[in-house]
C-alpha cells in the first residue's frame, strides 16, 4: 500500500473525517480509533485505502493508507523512514516524537490523514549530508544516549523544547523533556546536550 502514485476510489469520506479531527482534537480522536468497541458495526470499512499526501522533511509523499494509519506507522511502514520509533503506541514514552510545523507531536497518536497539508519533520530531516544538526551534535558530545532507541524522539523533543523557550534552566529542561522516557537513563547527559545546543538553535 506504500507510495501509490495513482489515485484510487476511496470508500472513506476524508472531508467528513477531517472535520472532526481538526486542531487540538487530534489526540483524543486517535485514541478512540485505537480502542474502538469491537462489537460496533462499521459504517464504512476503514481498511479501504484513502489517498493522502504527507509533506515529510520538505518532500510531498503520496500514499494510499488505511484510514486508521498513524503518522508513525505511515513513516515507518509506508515511507521507510524508520528513525521515529514505536515504544508504546500510546503517547506515553515519546520515542515517536516528530515536529508537525513547530510543534512536537507524538506521531503514534496522530492520524496520518490529520497531518495532511502540514510540514512533518522527522529525525531523518535534520542533518545535511556533511553536518549534524546542533542538537544531534550535542547529543553525540554529551553521550546523551546509550541504546539509542529513544534518541530520535528525544532530539525532536529537545529542538522544540528550546524553541518553546523551555531550555533556560536545568529545571526547565528536565520538566519539559519529561515526556520522553529514556530507559537507559541518560537524563543528566540529555540535559547537558540541550544546554549545549540551545544557543545555536536560538540563533537559528
Amino acid at each position, binding site marked *: *500500500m506504500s507510495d501509490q502514485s495513482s489515485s484510487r476510489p476511496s470508500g472513506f469520506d476524508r472531508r467528513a473525517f477531517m472535520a472532526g479531527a481538526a486542531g487540538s482534537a487530534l489526540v483524543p480522536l486517535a485514541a478512540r480509533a485505537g480502542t474502538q468497541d469491537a462489537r460496533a458495526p462499521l459504517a464504512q470499512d476503514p481498511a479501504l485505502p484513502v489517498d493522502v499526501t504527507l509533506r515529510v522533511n520538505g518532500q510531498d509523499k503520496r500514499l494510499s493508507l488505511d484510514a486508521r494509519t498513524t503518522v508513525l506507522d505511515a513513516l515507518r511502514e509506508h515511507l521507510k523512514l524508520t528513525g521515529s520509533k514505536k515504544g508504546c503506541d500510546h503517547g506515553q514514552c515519546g520515542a515517536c516524537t516528530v515536529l508537525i510545523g513547530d510543534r512536537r507531536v507524538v506521531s503514534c497518536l496522530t492520524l496520518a490523514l490529520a497531518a495532511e497539508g502540514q510540514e512533518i519533520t522527522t529525525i531523518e530531516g535534520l542533518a545535511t549530508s556533511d553536518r549534524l544538526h546542533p542538537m544531534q551534535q550535542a547529543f553525540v558530545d554529551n553521550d546523551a544516549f546509550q*541504546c539509542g532507541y529513544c*534518541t530520535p524522539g528525544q532530539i525532536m523533543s529537545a529542538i522544540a523544547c528550546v524553541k518553546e523557550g523551555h531550555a533556560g534552566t536545568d529545571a526547565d529542561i528536565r520538566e519539559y523533556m519529561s515526556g520522553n*522516557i529514556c530507559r537507559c537513563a541518560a537524563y*543528566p547527559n540529555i540535559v547537558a546536550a540541550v544546554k549545549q545546543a540551545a544557543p545555536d538553535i536560538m540563533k537559528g
Partner: protein
Amino acid sequence: MNAAAPEPKANMGQPVPRYDAAAKVTGRATYGSDMPMDNPAYAFLVTSAIARGRINGFDLDDARRVRGVIDIVTYENAPKLKEAKLFSNGGYAGTTIQPLKSTDIAHEGEIIAVVVAESYEAAREAANRVKVSYTAVAPSASFDSPGTTKAAAKGQNAQFKEDPQVGDFAKAFDEAEVKLTASYDTPTQHHNPMELFSTSCVWMGDDLVIYEPSQYVYGLKNGVAEQLGIDADKVRVVNPYVGGGFGSRGSMTPRTAIIAGIARRLNRPIKLVPTRDQGFTIATYRAETRHEIKLGASRDGRLVALRHEGAEVSSRADAYCVGGTKTTTRLYACPNVDSLVSIVRADRNTPGFMRSPPEVPYLFALESAMDELAVKLNMDPVELRRINDTTNEPIGGKPYTSRSLMACFDEAAKAFGWSERSAAPKSMSDGDWLIGYGCAATCYPTQMAPSAARVRLQRDGRTRVEIAGHEIGTGAYTVIAQTASERLGVPLEKVAVFIGDSDLPPAPVAGGSNSTASTCSAVMMVCDQIRQKLFKAVMPNESLTDKAKETVGLGQAPTTQAAKSDRPLDLEKAFDALGAGVVEEYGEWKPDGAPLDSFKAMHSGHARLVGGHQMKDKIAYAFGAEFVEVRVNRFTHEIRAPRLVGAFAAGRIMNPRTARSQLMGGLIWGMSSALLEATEIDERTARYVNDNFADYLVPVNADVGGVEVILLSEQDDHINPTGAKGLGELANVGTNAAICNAIYHATGQRIRKLPVRLENIEV
C-alpha cells in the same frame, strides 16, 4: 572534554565518542522492526484474559470478516513446534510454557492466537474481534496466595548449586553480643526496554532470517532451529542495534518460533510488533522476593554470624531463581554463615534475568540490615563496612582477585560530604524537607565466557572486526573498535566493527556483564595473531617476543624503552614481505577455568560463563559504594533523591565515557527500584495491573537530580586479558538500600519493603 567524557586515570582507555553515535542521532541505526522487508504481512497477538484454566473455544467469525485478514492461528491450527528447553537445563528458552499447543492456560497474558493480516491496522482490529470462551480456575498470584507451593531451590534448579554455609551459625548467633533479625521485601519489576518485543521473520527457500532485538543471537538462532526442527545453519538472526535489553532479551521467548512457523506456512515475510502491555507477559521479569536476615556482631562491630534466607516467586512450569546468597554470604568477613533459598510456584509467566538479577534484591536486604546493625552499634555505617572488609571471601576462604570496596567508600564519602552528616535520625532538615544521608555497598561478579572473533587488516590500515556481539547500549561497538585500534596500532577511524549477526563468529550472551571482557579478549587475541603473522613475514628468523607483543603497534613508532629494543613493524613492508593485500585471522578465546566443552557450546549457542565465586582458587567481583541524599517533605511525605554519588572500581575501564554513562544509568535504575518501580499484581486474577508506561513508573528527566560517577583506578591481572570487570550491572545494586537507609536517617522510620511511596511514610 565535558562531564560526559571523564579524564582517564591510570589503567583507563580513552573516552572517545561512541562508534555508533552518528547512526543513533540521525535515525540511521536500524533496530529489529526497522529492517526493510519485502511485502510483509503483519501479525498481532491475542493473549489470555485468564491466568489459569482452559480455552473452551474460539469464535473467529467477526475477526475473519475484517478486510485484509490472511490467517488466524490458534492451538487448533498452529505450526507444530518442538519443545523448548529452559536455558538452565541446557536449552535456550526463558520459559518452557509453550503457547498455542493445547487449550491449557498457564498464566495471564499467554499468547492464545496470532492474527495475520495485510496491514497492522487490520491485524489489530481482527485481534480485537477474536472471541474466546474460557473455563477459568482461581489462580495463585504470588506469595501468600492459596495454592502456591514452596520448596528449596537446591535440587530443582540446576544452576542453583549450593546454599552457602560455613562455621556454626546457630551457636554464634545465639552467643552474639548484638543481634539483628529483619525481613525485607522487593517487588515484581519489568525491564521495559524502550524497543518493543518485536520479531520479523523472512524465509528465503529453506533459509530463515530473523530480525529481533536479542541479547544472544547465537542462542536465538539455535533455539529457533531446534523448535522448528531444522539445521541451525539455516537460521540467521540479525540485530545490529538493540533498543535496550536489561536481561529481557537474553533467552528465547516462545514468540519467535511461532512467528517463524507461521511465516513458513504462509510463505510470506511476517512482522510482529507486540504492544507494550503484551511485553509484560510474553517475555520475562524480575520476580518479587522476600528475605530474612539475621546478623550477630560483637560490640566492636565485627560480624560473628550471618544468615540470609530468601524466597522467590516463579511459574508452575519452571524453577527459575536468582539465588543472591552466593554474593551476600561472601561480601563481608564472617566466620559463621548460613543461608537458604526457596522458590514459590504461582500461576505466573516464568521470571528471568533483570539487570543484576541476584544482587538487586539480595543486597537490598543485606545492605539495609548492615545499616540497621550500625544503628544498633551506634557506629558509622561506613566504619561498620570497614571493620568487616576482607581480602578473602568467608565461605571457601578464596582471595578476591582485587577488591577496592573501602577505597570506593572513601572516595564517594568525600565527594558526597558524608562527614557533614549528623548521625541522629531527623536531625537534618531544610524548611519543610527532612534530609537524610544514606549509603550502601555494591558489588557484581566479574564474569567471562568463550568468544570468537575475526579480524581483517588491509595494508592501508583499514581494519574490519567481526563478532556476533550485541550493542544494547553498553558501547560494545566502541570498546571493540578501541581494542582493535590499540592492539594493531591503527587509527580508530580506520576500524569498522560488525556485530549483532549470527553469521559472524560467535560471542556469548550479552548478560552477566561479561561482554566487554569476553569479546575484547577475543579481539585482542586475534589481533595478536595478525601481528604475529606480519612479524614472521618481515623477520622470519626472529620471534615476536612477549614484551614486543605488549608494546609494539603495527606501523607505529614504539614509545616505551622496552619497545625500542624491538623493531617496530612498517605495515607496508610487512605486507610486501607477506605478498598479500589483506591479512585475515579468526580465533577462539576462552577464559581460564572454562569447561572442556566451551567452544562446542559456544557454537551451539550456550554461553559457558565463568567467574564470580565459581572460579577455582579465587573470587572476582567489581565493587562500588553509593551515597544518596533524600528529602522527605514533612507534610506531603513526597520523597526526592536529589543527589546520587557512586564510586566504582572495575579493573580496566575501557572507555571512561561509556562506563560513566552506564554507571550513571545504573544509579538512576537503583533510585527507581527504591522509589518508583513495581508491577502491581491483582491477587484475584493474577494479572499485572499497571502494564503500561503511564502506570508502571520509570524515572523521567524531572525525577533525576544530581548524579555523580567516580571511576577509581584499579588493576587486576587475574581475571582476563583485558583486565576489565563488567560494570553494566554494578551501579544499580545497593542504591535501593542506600535510599532506605537515607529515609531512616531523614525520618527515623525504617522501611523494609520496596518501593517506598509517599503513603508508606509515617512522619
